[in-house]
């Protein structure tokens, strides 16, 4: 389980963590996720799934840590 967005893509090793905040804000504002990922420069589907499938759980776990 990764509680925060992983720093790198598990498959190819590309650094992807820096895109998480922008992705979250833009999709929350209603932009389509696929388009946001493309515009963030994530072209491979391994990197795209890192962001698309991530659930930030640290705030849920935090109070018990």
């Amino acid at each position, binding site marked *: 389980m990764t509680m925060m967005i992983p720093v790198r893509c598990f498959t*190819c*090793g590309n650094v992807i963590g820096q895109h998480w905040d922008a992705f979250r804000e833009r999709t929350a504002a209603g932009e389509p996720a696929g388009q946001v990922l493309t515009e963030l420069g994530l072209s491979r589907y391994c990197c795209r799934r890192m962001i698309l499938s991530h659930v930030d759980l640290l705030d849920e776990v935090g109070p018990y840590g």
Partner: protein
Amino acid sequence: MELKLLELGPRRLALELGGVSAAQSNAIRRALLADVPKLAIDDVEFHLGPIRDESTGKDYDSSTSMFDEAVALRLGLLPIPTDLGQFRRRSECSCKGEGCAHCQVMYSIDKKGPCTVYARDLVPLGDAELAILEPEVPIVRLGARQALLAYATAVVGNARDHAKWQVVHAVSIQPRATVKIHKRSGCSAACLKRLAEAAPEGLLEFANDRLSYTGGDDASRPLLLLGTQKLCEHGSLEVVVDDADHLVTFETDGSLSPRDALRYALKNLKGRFEELREAVQAIP
């Protein structure tokens, strides 16, 4: 051996190698992945116990909701700009592994919650040019009474030992291919139309009873039709693969430029074969 540069970006390189075997291209691919050294954080010293804010007198707890080991791993994976002319491995340094300005870089991190700690909060002690390349990577989130005070040491290492020292990723090598379309006897318009429909998007077009290739100049795309060509039993669509020409593309994490990474990988290959040559020479 011929070399044609197709694309050179700050973090991406594409080139065409002519007159090489698949084995040679693969040797370059493997050297790129595993033999290019870079700086990465290898040692993190966390302050344990209460952390006092001198300005307010408030005490913070040094434990966060993530284990120290997990925070250390996240710090290790961050890309650090590396000048291989300036830095060398500790084992090869004149300081004999004790640690000096030529073989290690120190960073400090001092944050008090509530906040999110980002890569930009990791401050290099000394040269500001060694700041983390991706400042917006989140490291850990701190609660209201939590703080993070740590010192990190980055050293030069090799991807054979840990993925954090991997400069190059997404290396691909593929033979050059060209598409030939000739309507063979026995082949019908319906057959050609079926090819256009089955092909990956944007590669084949069927109009006015003619099939045409619409993949453009991108040399990597004809290979995508290898599966489609089998659908026409008459052989109207042919993908000709030239094994002597290879397209090599790769990306770096920014710690080295793609050009430097390739140069270093080739230098490393040369060095390894040189060692072998000397060993062979020593055979009586």
